[in-house]
């Protein structure tokens, strides 16, 4: 598995073509085959995400328990960030990956109520609400707009401290470092 991707480890756009290709889609139990809501067609995860990116639409990735386990690699967080995923909502995170998401300016969220995982439907459009008051220990809300016209609101938690919230706002920790560096010059 590693072989073909090894050579792209220094090229974010190319290596992003392996984003989540091993993840199993809850709705069809297949890897690397997800629905493009804009066309109704199924495609690979990276290609589908690139289509959303081209259309200027952000996306949400939903995961189960211990999401990101085994991944201490920063690319696991940089790839979705690069391709325009805005938030990752899971039942629980592996610690290192959660931190890496924060560093890349992503929103890493957990279900306040794990059963809400079942409320996420394949054709959902999602709003993340409360970001203007994004603060440590303050849950956020997710509004799920289902395709059939109904919507429901669920609570989601996060573990961002003030510093990490600054990372999110700046679009990633590196942007803050860069700014501080420039100010020092």
């Amino acid at each position, binding site marked *: 598995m590693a072989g073909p991707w090894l050579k792209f*480890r220094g090229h*974010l756009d190319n290596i992003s073509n392996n984003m989540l290709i*091993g993840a199993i889609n809850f709705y069809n139990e297949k890897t690397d085959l997800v629905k493009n809501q804009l066309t109704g067609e199924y495609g690979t995860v990276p290609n589908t995400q690139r289509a959303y990116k081209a259309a200027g639409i952000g996306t949400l990735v939903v995961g189960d328990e211990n999401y990101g386990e085994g991944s201490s690699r920063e690319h696991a967080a940089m790839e979705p960030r690069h391709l325009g995923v805005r938030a990752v909502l899971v039942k629980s995170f592996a610690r290192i990956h959660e931190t890496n998401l924060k560093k*890349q300016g992503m929103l890493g969220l957990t279900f306040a109520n794990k059963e809400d995982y079942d409320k996420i439907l394949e054709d959902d459009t999602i709003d993340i609400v409360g970001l203007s008051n994004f603060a440590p220990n303050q849950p956020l809300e997710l509004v799920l707009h289902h395709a059939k016209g109904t919507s429901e609101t669920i609570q989601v938690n996060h573990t961002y401290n003030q510093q990490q919230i600054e990372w999110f706002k700046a679009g990633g920790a590196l942007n803050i470092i860069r700014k501080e560096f420039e100010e020092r010059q």
Partner: protein
Amino acid sequence: PGGMMIGTDSHTVNAGGLGMIAIGVGGADACDVMAGLAWELKMPKLIGVKLTGKLSGWAAPKDVILKVAGILTVKGGTGAVVEYFGEGATSMSCTGKGTICNMGAEIGATTSTFGYDESMSRYLKATGREDIAVAADAIAAHLTGDAEVYANPEAYFDQVIELDLNTLEPHLNGPFTPDLATPISQMKAAAAANGWPTKIEVGLIGSCTNSSYEDISRAVSLAQQVTDKGLTLKAEFNINPGSEQIRYTIERDGFLGVFDKIGANVFANACGPCIGMWARVGAEKAEKNTIVHSFNRNFAKRADGNPNTYAFVGSPELVTAMAIAGSLDFNPLTDTLTNDKGEQVKLDPPSGHELPPKGFAVEDAGYQQPAEDGSGIQVMVSPDSKRLQLLDPFAAWEGVDLKGLKLLIKANAPPIISAWQVHGLNSVVISIILAIIC
């Protein structure tokens, strides 16, 4: 000494032997720190290991950590910093301390460390860092635990272990896990009870863990006895020096010649067999087989990819003795070997030098120092490159709620990890790739 260091290899912890707090981290963390960001860690527990007595004869620093691994297991150090202290600690060489701290990774410890003492001062002076030694000597009392702490460790550490080095036996740990500790006197019985193959096919010494001048000189004192006492190596025996400096120095001092004479192989200065990079004759063999080495990890398949290889970890001197005897049944402290005249001979206990009497030497250490002032350096990447790409900064948050996101994927229960995550192939820095394996 007294410094803090992070590195992208789990055996960064080696530097605890120089009185540092040195911790292995992921590549992203290291980049952040290099760029000036703080690195955060949940406050670790403290485990104190009080070493009484002194090492002598066959016992080596390696046996301290092999014994500790047996007590704490591969999980016992998780979330903890292990601090060694006591007469046994200060009387031990600096590089021996490094070996102990190195293998702290195998008990899951965040890091291991020793208070500053004269052995570190000697080592710094011998390795061209007299200025650091002088600076550290001037504040030596601040670079080690307070006397009250060491006198009454139970009051300050979350857990205290006491080891008497006067009675510490050489150990072999394994197979398949570094915490299965067997004193050499009980190895014969343990091997028989567990069905471990007793014939030793290969002995390996060296690596980042155990190729100090002391290690090699003590191993050489045994190798010399092979010649002097009319013995022959019963197992293949290989040495991989941990650096060009040590290789050059031991060559100059004639040690490589001694190894060569008894038919041992000296490998390149690299991880080599420690991560399975060597031409293991018989690695494809389906039969169970035994090797002994002085590295740090011995999980199944690590050293040669063969799940049938039973790998045992021991001190370089014990591994050398075992390679000479070729059998797990051999206890060099008590047993004799038959020489070419049919006589029974015993190996004298190993002896060596903490540091090279003639000093270290090297012609080309292979180290390239970073530029003093890197501001003028331009990184040029071809825009057509398929393999390298400069990063564009990610956009800042728009300042409003995120509306109208589409669900990209709802992933099923783990394993949801994708190819890159499992195989971790994301960094240009070779040490990061090593971190996955080391």
